[in-house]
């Protein structure tokens, strides 16, 4: 009961704020917010950007790719050279080429997969002027693409979808920086440190000393959640008391994590001047996520039967890998939210969740992260599913499908399916191949079906740009550094580019007005169809693998089989 109330509270706070936030974001996308105009225009001037220029989808894609490549190379250099760069009080050495590749790919794609232990493998400087900058820029780039996709539906016969440089700048200045600064301040008040000093040595009460890792935590923590990034300052991520000091900061971080994702459909409805369209997408996202939270809570609250039989109290739930100050409901809601988005932050360790509890985050990633998904990426992914839904509905009644007045034809459906299938290929072939190699098997921390879950989770997380892990996996190996690094790059760009192509193609089409024969894309019928398409098209292809992983794990555990 306590758990259900907590889940309801999180949804009420997030969905309640999504309406004003969505309005504000629509105003940013439309260029109506101007309070930092001097800084904004200064940026354009210094960078040689013409803010009035409108881009075709190809220009939009090329500028985004080019900026991402440059930023990737900069982070790679910073990670390799961190020993020689400022703000390295612990004297941490440079990363190896393969780990630096994996890490740079991870942050350039908004994934934030961490194959390194931050306390000992990355300097304060590399976190602050390397990783944190990517947390802003990769998030802003994702939201920019969402804004470009929205524009494709606004009018007919348009060749352009906005200006990438302008979108990136405005989203960073007016959305990401202000709110993450406020959140960072709240986090410091609650106890998250923010210092460039070295680790602290304490003389503990019960004889002995303790070295306490510390650093500029709060600033990173805020944008880590708000930009659905997820890369922790510490190895334990948001389970670490310095990243997440108490139940209230946990609630704040959970809110930050979800709010942009749920606000984007609202922004879309406002820009379309048809708010019901945005609400329909938002509710489809929310229903799937709520079911995921409730299911995971049920799995974790009842505890581990093997441990209860060994004399552990049955009332506490499965506490392995969870911290006391959060408890079960807040732990599971946080982790499920972070896999329904592309955040991948954790406040508890999914590897030690009950098999069905861990299956939910895995499945939410495999669905393509649309509940509500990464900032921007969740929105443009659910648009792909919406196009597929009207196509399926069109097939059933034998009419040319249209979505929001735009005819959906063979070209768009081919591009949409291309995006969906590329991701599936990477996840299933990548996990399958890894498990056929000695190196891959050597990375597993757990035996039996749980080992398969670990590898499947890693490839799902990398390809879907999530970044969370069944963290027992030893990920810093040549196979996984290069393999997962490539999966992150393909997962981001081999999906994003077809989506921009769809946007370009739809923008150029005339905008038809709705007729009596138009399939309505608001209301329960459409929401139900959309959820069905997401689960069937997004999820069904993974069911055989998931059956051999988490489902088999649960059955064997029920039969008291250990590994």
């Amino acid at each position, binding site marked *: 009961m306590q758990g259900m109330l*907590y889940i309801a*509270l999180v949804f009420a706070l997030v969905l309640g704020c999504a309406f004003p936030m969505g309005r504000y974001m629509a105003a940013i996308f439309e260029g109506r917010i101007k309070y930092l105009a001097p800084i904004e225009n200064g*940026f354009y001037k210094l*960078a*040689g*950007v013409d803010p009035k220029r409108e881009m075709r989808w190809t220009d939009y894609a*090329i*500028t985004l790719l*080019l900026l991402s490549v440059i930023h990737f190379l*900069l982070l790679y250099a910073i990670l390799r050279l961190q020993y020689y760069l400022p703000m390295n009080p612990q004297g941490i050495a440079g990363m190896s080429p393969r780990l630096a590749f994996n890490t740079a790919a991870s942050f350039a794609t908004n994934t934030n997969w961490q194959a390194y*232990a931050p*306390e000992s493998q990355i300097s304060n400087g590399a976190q602050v*002027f390397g990783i*944190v*900058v990517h947390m*802003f*820029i990769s998030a802003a780039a994702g939201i920019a693409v969402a804004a470009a996709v929205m524009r494709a539906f606004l009018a007919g016969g348009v060749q352009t979808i906005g200006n990438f440089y302008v979108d990136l700048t405005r989203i*960073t200045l007016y959305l990401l*920086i202000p709110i993450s*600064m406020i959140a960072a301040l709240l986090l410091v008040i609650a*106890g998250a440190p*923010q*210092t460039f000093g070295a680790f*602290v040595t*304490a003389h*503990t*009460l*019960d004889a002995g000393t*303790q*070295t*306490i*890792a*510390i650093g500029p935590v709060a600033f990173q923590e805020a944008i880590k959640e708000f930009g659905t990034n997820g890369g922790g300052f*510490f*190895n*334990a991520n948001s389970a670490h*008391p310095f990243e997440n000091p108490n*139940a209230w900061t946990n609630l704040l971080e959970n809110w930050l994590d979800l709010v942009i994702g749920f606000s984007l459909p609202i922004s879309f409805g406002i820009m379309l001047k048809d708010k019901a369209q945005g609400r329909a997408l938002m509710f489809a996202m929310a229903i799937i996520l709520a079911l995921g939270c409730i299911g995971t809570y049920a799995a974790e609250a009842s505890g*581990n039967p093997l*441990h209860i039989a*060994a*004399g552990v*109290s049955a009332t506490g739930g*499965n*506490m*392995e*890998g969870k*911290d*006391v*100050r959060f408890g079960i409901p807040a732990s599971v809601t946080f982790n499920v939210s972070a896999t329904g988005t592309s955040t991948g932050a954790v406040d*508890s*360790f999914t*590897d*030690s969740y009950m098999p069905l509890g861990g299956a939910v985050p895995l499945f939410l990633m495999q669905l393509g992260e649309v509940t509500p998904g990464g900032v921007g990426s969740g929105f443009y992914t659910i648009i792909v599913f919406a196009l597929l839904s009207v196509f399926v509905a069109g097939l059933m009644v034998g009419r040319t499908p249209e979505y929001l007045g735009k005819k959906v034809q063979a070209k768009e459906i081919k591009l949409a399916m291309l995006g969906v299938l590329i991701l599936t290929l990477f996840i299933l072939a990548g996990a399958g191949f890894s498990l056929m190699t000695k190196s891959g098997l050597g990375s597993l*921390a*757990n035996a039996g079906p*749980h080992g398969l879950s670990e590898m499947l989770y890693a490839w799902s997380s990398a390809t879907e740009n999530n970044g969370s892990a069944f963290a027992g996996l030893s990920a810093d190996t040549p196979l996984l550094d290069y393999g997962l690094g490539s999966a992150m790059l393909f997962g981001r760009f081999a999906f994003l580019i077809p989506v921009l192509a769809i946007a370009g193609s739809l923008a150029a089409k005339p905008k038809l007005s709705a007729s009596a024969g138009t399939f309505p894309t608001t209301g329960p019928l459409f929401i139900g169809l959309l959820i069905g398409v997401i689960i069937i098209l997004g999820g069904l292809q993974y069911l055989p693998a998931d059956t051999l992983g988490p489902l088999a*794990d649960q059955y*064997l555990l029920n039969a008291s089989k250990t*590994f």
Partner: protein
Amino acid sequence: MSIAREIRPAISLVVLFTLLTGFILPEAFTGAVQLALPSQANGSLLTLNGQVVGSAIIGQNFTSAKYFQPRPSALTGTDAKGNNINTPYDASESGASNMGPASASLLQSVQQRVASYQKAFGPGPVPADAATASGSGLDPDISRANALRQAPAVAAARHLDPAKVMNLVNQMAHRSFLGVVGTDHVNVLKLNLALDALSAR
């Protein structure tokens, strides 16, 4: 379009945003909170007789019978010879056991923890937080039920009235907000500091 034409704006924006979000804002923010909130910004350190004894929000290890015991911590490290050893509450690292729910070695650890807990604090089901390792490896808290179970044995080790120690636990306990946000728990370091103060009186 030509890609060459895009190189200047792309590089410039990367540089400008690196300056803004990687240098100016974090430096200004750090300076501001170091001035306004120095305690939290530097890790909420607790001092006793002028010496730092730990952080109020980071757990530390206690093994003596006269102290309340923290949760198991899964942190490991290497000793001087390069062997793997347990390093519970070593706050220069952090992390969980990552052992799966059907792990035989996890089950074995749980059985050992249950046995030693029951030996120290009496028979009966063991609170879940006492039998399992935390997510951070640095969990500063134990559940109130766990603390109350430990109280009589801690009181006996200090020759204190058990009721007094129970009372202290209840005084120091953090309560969940309306039963929805947060849990009933006690910060182990603060509790043990208060216990030392109580014994000294």
